[in-house]
């Protein structure tokens, strides 16, 4: 058992797709929340296997996409001091702030370094005692344990020069905001697999119970996604609204408690702005006062939400109310090279995925 190839069997995929086709006897709107699912669906051409009446909508689960322009501007601002090294996941390098992005700033002389893990940023801080090393804290619950671990490491080592600018967000509050919006009309959630490894499948119970929306916690291989869609179709056809786990090999009911404990040792839950959507209550993480020494936001003036681009329809696309091709800017003014808003910004944004992999151009 090697956990990858077994779940990529093309012949089985076609057979499951056939079953879905037979059983989905009415139109259904399903939302995949997680950006990595959007990417996997696009990369493996899953939509091409599904019947026409089954609509897959991409939700706001792309942490890169939903980081407000203003916060990117803040991080760029921090990098303008000569004594600062900015460290970030590679995903953020081309994301546009209001006027610039990290790639352009690096070209202009800012010390911007891509790291694979926040623990690598700790090493950079240890190796550069004369510099301020700031890590851009992007990511949902899958990623926050790594950042929390890094903050605790810095604290244990008494590192004076390591800081985190937190833009971390939480998935269930965003799902609740979408579930409670009758205009959005989601009939099933493809729930994020690795976020659920951390938070557990129980986290989605309130959504299934209070909003009557089926939830299936899903893995990332093509067979995982197809099986999960089949499970959602079955629930919808049978009039059930339950939380089911397709990704049982990696997800338990209550998740990884040690990881969650570490996150809430370092962070508090706060209201936060999601690019393209606005403020969602108790949906973000900020460093706790005990760890203020590692909080980069203290170097900055108070954060001011920035207005988006007027032509940008991302807010409606993130809610699944419009599809990328409905947006007048899509593919014309707004492309992966020149993204106007979050949905085009990274490969897993709905618009970028559609532009790159199908985009009505197929």
């Amino acid at each position, binding site marked *: 058992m090697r956990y990858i190839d077994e779940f990529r069997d093309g012949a089985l995929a076609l057979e499951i797709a056939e079953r879905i086709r037979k059983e989905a006897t009415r139109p259904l709107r399903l939302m995949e929340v997680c950006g990595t699912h959007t990417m996997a669906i696009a990369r493996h*051409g899953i939509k091409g296997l599904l019947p026409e009446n089954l609509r897959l909508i991409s939700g706001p689960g792309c942490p890169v996409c939903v980081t407000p322009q203003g916060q990117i501007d803040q991080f760029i601002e921090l990098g303008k001091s000569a004594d600062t090294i900015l460290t970030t996941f590679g995903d953020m390098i*081309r994301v546009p702030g209001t006027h610039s992005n990290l790639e*352009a700033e690096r070209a202009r002389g800012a010390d911007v370094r891509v790291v694979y893990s926040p623990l690598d940023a700790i090493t950079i801080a240890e190796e550069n005692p004369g510099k301020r090393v700031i890590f851009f804290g992007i990511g949902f619950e899958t990623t926050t344990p790594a950042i929390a671990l890094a903050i605790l490491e810095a604290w244990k080592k008494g590192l004076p020069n390591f800081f985190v600018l937190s833009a971390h967000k939480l998935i269930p509050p965003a799902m609740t905001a979408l579930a409670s919006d009758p205009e959005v009309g989601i009939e099933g959630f493809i729930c994020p697999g690795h976020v659920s490894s951390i938070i557990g499948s129980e986290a989605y119970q309130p959504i299934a119970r209070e909003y009557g929306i089926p939830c299936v916690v899903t893995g990332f291989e093509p067979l995982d996604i197809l099986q999960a869609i089949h499970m959602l179709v079955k629930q919808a056809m049978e009039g059930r609204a339950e939380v089911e786990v397709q990704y049982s090999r990696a997800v338990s009911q209550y998740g990884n408690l040690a990881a969650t404990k570490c996150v809430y040792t370092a962070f508090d839950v706060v209201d936060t702005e999601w690019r393209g959507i606005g403020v969602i209550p108790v949906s973000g993480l900020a460093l706790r006062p005990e760890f203020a020494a590692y909080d980069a936001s203290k170097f900055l003036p108070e954060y001011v939400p920035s207005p988006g681009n007027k032509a940008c329809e991302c807010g409606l696309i993130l809610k699944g109310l419009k599809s990328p091709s409905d947006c007048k800017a899509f593919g014309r003014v707004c492309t992966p090279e020149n993204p106007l808003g979050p949905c085009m910004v990274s490969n897993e944004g709905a618009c970028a995925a559609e532009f790159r992999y199908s985009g009505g151009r*197929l």
Partner: protein
Amino acid sequence: MKDDIILLAHGAGGKKSADLIGGLFLKHFGNPTLNVLGDSAIIRNGAHTLAFTTDSFVVDPLFFPGGDIGKLAICGTVNDLAAAGAQPIALSAAFILEEGLEFEVLERIVDSMSRTASEVGVSIVTGDTKVVPRGSADRMFINTSGIGLLPAQEYPSPERACVGDIVILSGTIGDHGMAVMTCREGIRFSSEIMSDCAPLNDLVAKMLEASPSIHCLRDPTRGGLAATLNEIASQSGVCIEIEEEKIPANEDVRVACELLGIDPLHVANEGKMLVIVPAQDAEAVLSALREHPLGERAAIIGRVHSEPTGRVHLKTSMGSLRILDIPAGDLLPRIC
């Protein structure tokens, strides 16, 4: 956001590189020979037809598993000549050295270049050396240029792909780019991935013996297979369709790509050829490749269609079709 400064992405072989070439260089330099944008320029001079190419090498680190900047500098230029169907007859080598570079390092690299050139059977006949102050160059930059003779009237060229042609890849993808990536700062993983850096002139000679009417040859370097296929599809005005399952790749390269969230189709190769050949010659070319040590993993990966022009389609392992787009720019590790 319009670019008013040069970014690393402009050199990465993807969309921004293409924009720079088209928007600036062709605009100012444009001429029929250049505009073909083949790996080599084809120059006719009376009875002779020459291939002429140049390439600069700025790889960091200078030494990587399976090769070094010197070997790369020779192979890169030899392979660009080979892509025109030409055997190399002479090379130049120009060095830009950073003040403070260790002599021993320079000697190792020059030795590597000499040995590679010997293996190919070509001489470095002219050169140049400049030294720049500390900090002005990343230890060493090398430029090599090469000329080759084209014996035939017909030669492979990026605009010659025809509907019905078969697409063949000479071996596994992603080896070079991932070998270099494992050495990168901030990417601490170890593997046995080796660069595939190798001179392909002999391999090409064997292919041309099997089929003198090969339409296109290209080595998929920066930007990977995705960039190369898109360039040919665009220059030939065709649609190329390839099958994911048929593309040869080593398991460790696959895993390294998954770990970093990188698409193997975007990763540079330095010892592989993409071959586009009339259908009736495909088997002969494939056999010729497989009989050669550098082509043992050669495989037919797709076919040329008529529409939509300039597009590359990938048939996924799930059996569905998606677009294979030109990569955006730099290869970056991702968490999403």
